[in-house]
């Protein structure tokens, strides 16, 4: 499907490239030029904003950087036009990376805050350009700039340039969409924190995406500078560019590589028919109306509708009846308790995590031995979840060491922990909502542990989905799974990176007794394959059945550790759970 669209684009590109020699009216050239122009802008915007969900209202700033890059270099410095284009790309990309390097460090700046921040930056850059010799106020004239001959006339040369750039932009957008990098971007879109914990280098990926997105916007700007031939700050940095690209992408479907291009073609065509003569005002009003109607009735865009239809078809095709019990029935066999080695896999020393004075973890020192199941228990609020969040790298420890296979990982980003072989599940499953079960698992195979290529990961994922008994549901979206299946998806996903250490955060909560038995068996099978497990659980039956040793936390401090039965009989532990008797 995608391949067919891809070859369609290349063929259409070649066909359109012959147009200038067929003697069409210059008017059609400039009309198509504008279409290509918007295709580049919308598709490039989508590479950051559609794929990762970081909606930018600052695309005008990067486009403007490109315009002024070329205008300054060609108009003021006097460089040849083509040589200025790499400059325009670089200036825009560098601006984006510089900005992203700061903004992406601040975790809270997402969603509407990111949108408004990028909008504000547009005004700042416009002000700076207006007040410095780059423009200085009167604008820059680019009349008489030498355009290299790519077609029979000046305007057709620009047409050819825009055509090449538009085709290239779409190909780049597809290449990213289909790559491992793209999979990481979509994971950021659905749940950035989980993506990072599962091994996606989110910070770096966002920067790369921003750089590509800005660079292409700069290219569009560079070409457009010569097309308009007179560049002013108020025109360049107007609200039109950011809002049009958002509109086009949403209308077309921003989760798709080709969606924004469709939206751009549609809107440009529509605007053209209305901008002639007295209808310009009506045209703008209609664009506004389309935006309203689109968001209200199809917030995922035209291609989003196609997607939903496809998923619904798969959902009905997949057997609704649950066969998990029958499938796992064959392998129900208690694995023999492996004698855990004395070799230490994870050594935690003096681990402390404070939230503004409150010590959620206070000087915890413990070790996890290779091949064992370590139970981690304690009353609510005792620091179990914080412990998992710190070991998985989601929180950075305030003090202490996390020595994993002889290396201190404390303070590293979460994706480094995942790559080192530490995986976790979430108590409330957090699957990537827009990915199928199989894609969810493949994501982790790609990024956790040693990492795999995209195609290998999809093959490996089949195996883990089967292990979790979800093969019959592998093409549905997580929303269509029940809780029990979502918990097993969570397990399959954690295992897909072949972790050395697996942290299970209350996998049993909310399951029925029969489902709990199933899960206990599965955990034993996971261990028998050599995975070390930290098991956080309130279901004591499971803790007693599964664990080799347990550690008890209370108020963030470790109060006991050792064999399960012994520990549960300790006075401190009883007091923590049941309260102290007043003698």
């Amino acid at each position, binding site marked *: 499907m995608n391949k067919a669209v891809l070859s369609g684009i290349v063929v259409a590109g070649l066909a359109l490239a012959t147009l200038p020699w067929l003697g069409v009216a210059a008017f059609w050239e400039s009309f198509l030029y504008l279409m290509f122009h918007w295709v580049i802008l919308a598709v490039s915007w989508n590479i950051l904003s559609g794929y990762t969900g970081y*909606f930018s209202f600052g695309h005008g700033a990067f486009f403007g950087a490109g315009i002024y890059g070329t205008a300054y270099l060609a108009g003021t410095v006097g460089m040849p036009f083509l040589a200025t284009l790499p400059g325009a790309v670089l200036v825009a990309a560098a601006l984006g990376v510089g900005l992203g390097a*700061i*903004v992406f460090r*601040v975790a*809270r*700046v997402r*969603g*509407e*805050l990111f*949108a*408004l*921040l990028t*909008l*504000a*930056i547009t*005004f*700042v850059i*416009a*002000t*700076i350009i*207006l*007040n410095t010799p780059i423009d200085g*106020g009167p604008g820059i004239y680019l009349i008489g700039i030498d355009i290299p001959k790519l077609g029979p006339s000046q305007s057709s040369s620009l047409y050819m340039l825009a055509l090449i750039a538009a085709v290239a932009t779409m190909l780049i957008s597809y290449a990213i969409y289909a790559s491992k990098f793209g999979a990481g971007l979509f994971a950021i879109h659905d749940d950035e924190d989980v993506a990072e914990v599962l091994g996606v280098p989110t910070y770096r990926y966002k920067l790369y995406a921003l750089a590509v997105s800005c660079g292409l916007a700069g290219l569009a700007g560079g070409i457009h500078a010569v097309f308009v031939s007179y560049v002013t700050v108020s025109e360049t940095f*107007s*609200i039109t560019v950011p*809002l049009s690209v*958002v*509109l086009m992408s*949403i209308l077309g479907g921003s989760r798709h590589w080709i969606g924004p291009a469709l939206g751009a073609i549609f809107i440009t065509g529509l605007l053209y028919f209305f901008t002639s003569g007295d209808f310009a*005002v*009506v045209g*703008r*009003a209609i*664009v*506004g*109306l*389309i*935006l*309203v109607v689109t*968001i*209200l009735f199809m*917030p995922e865009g035209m291609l989003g509708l196609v997607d939903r239809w496809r998923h619904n078809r798969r959902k009905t095709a997949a057997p609704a009846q649950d066969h998990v019990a029958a499938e796992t029935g064959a392998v129900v066999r208690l694995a023999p308790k492996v004698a855990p080695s004395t070799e230490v896999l994870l050594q935690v020393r003096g681990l402390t995590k404070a939230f503004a004075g409150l010590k959620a973890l206070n000087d915890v020192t413990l070790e996890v031995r290779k091949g064992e199941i370590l139970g981690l228990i304690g009353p609510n609020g005792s620091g179990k979840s914080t412990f998992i969040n710190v070991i998985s790298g989601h929180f950075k420890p305030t003090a202490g060491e996390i020595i994993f296979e002889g290396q201190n990982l404390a303070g590293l980003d979460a994706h480094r922990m995942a790559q080192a072989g530490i995986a976790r599940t979430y108590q409330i499953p957090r699957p990537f909502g827009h990915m199928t079960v199989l894609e969810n698992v493949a994501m982790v195979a790609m990024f956790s542990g040693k990492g795999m290529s995209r195609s290998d990961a999809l093959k490996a994922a089949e195996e883990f989905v089967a292990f979790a008994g979800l093969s019959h549901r592998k093409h549905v979206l997580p929303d269509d799974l029940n809780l029990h299946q979502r918990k097993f998806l969570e397990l399959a996903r954690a295992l897909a990176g072949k972790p050395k250490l697996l942290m299970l955060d209350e996998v049993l909560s909310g399951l029925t007794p029969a489902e709990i038995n199933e899960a206990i068996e599965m955990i034993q099978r996971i261990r028998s394959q050599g995975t070390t497990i930290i098991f956080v659980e309130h279901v004591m039956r499971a803790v007693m059945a599964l664990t080799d040793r347990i550690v008890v936390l209370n108020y963030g401090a470790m109060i006991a550790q050792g064999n399960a039965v012994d520990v549960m009989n300790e006075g401190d532990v009883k007091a923590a759970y049941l309260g102290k008797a007043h003698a």
Partner: protein
Amino acid sequence: MSFPSLNLLSQSILSGIFIGGMYSLIGLGLGLSWGLLRQINLAHFGFVFLSAYLSYHMVSVWGLDPLLTLLILPPFFFLIGVAQQALLSRFRISPFNSLLVTFGFTVMIESLIQYVWTADFRKLHSSYGDLKFTVGGLYVPIPEFLTLLLAVFFAFAVWAAMRFTDIGKAMRAMAEDGPIAAAYGINQRGLSLMLSGVCVALASIAGVCFALTFTLTPTQIFSWVGVVFAVVMIGGLGSAIGPLVAGVIIGASEAIAMVIFAPSWAPIVSFSLLILMLLFRPGRA
């Protein structure tokens, strides 16, 4: 860079404070609907301008007193606000999508204005326009003074209403957690319709003040978006007094930047403040 005389500087700061009054009067309704309804209502700016043009029309064409339009327009805009909220809540719009939908509204309002009043500059000429008084050698123009007065009045009125009345308390509960508030018997739908109506009515009041002070042209709608957003976010979402303080501070600092550097440098003040605040205190917004 040049250092102006003390008198020029204080006159500039004074006019900056008046502009700040305008910022905060526009920002008040915007921040309330963002903080309490979780809707980023870009159409707020459209309503400000629509109200300004209507006020202009009533004064210039029908010959009404500008202050009379201050009484006629708000009820009308209250209904528009109710209607808009009814539509948005019907479709359960997310905060981000509300930004896009209301942008669509704004574009439609802008087109409407351009269609009816054309893109020409319009100036409301009234008997109040040129009135001014002097305090300690500084000129105080009446329209600007009125704007600031109304900004202060409504900021404190909203603050008091939120704090002391039952409806205000119910609104704060609703903003905190809508479903829970509803479970305790708060009429969420009714309250949000009313709040949206109030916010848009505030926009129309700002619009009348705008018409009294500034020359009108439809394309200007978007040039106010950035700075007012900065005021609202620095002042705190859902806060009544915050935007007033932030507006006055930003207005005054812009004025200082204008006299010391050049007028065209002014926008950089508010946006740099906004960017710094987003980066270092993102929890606030």
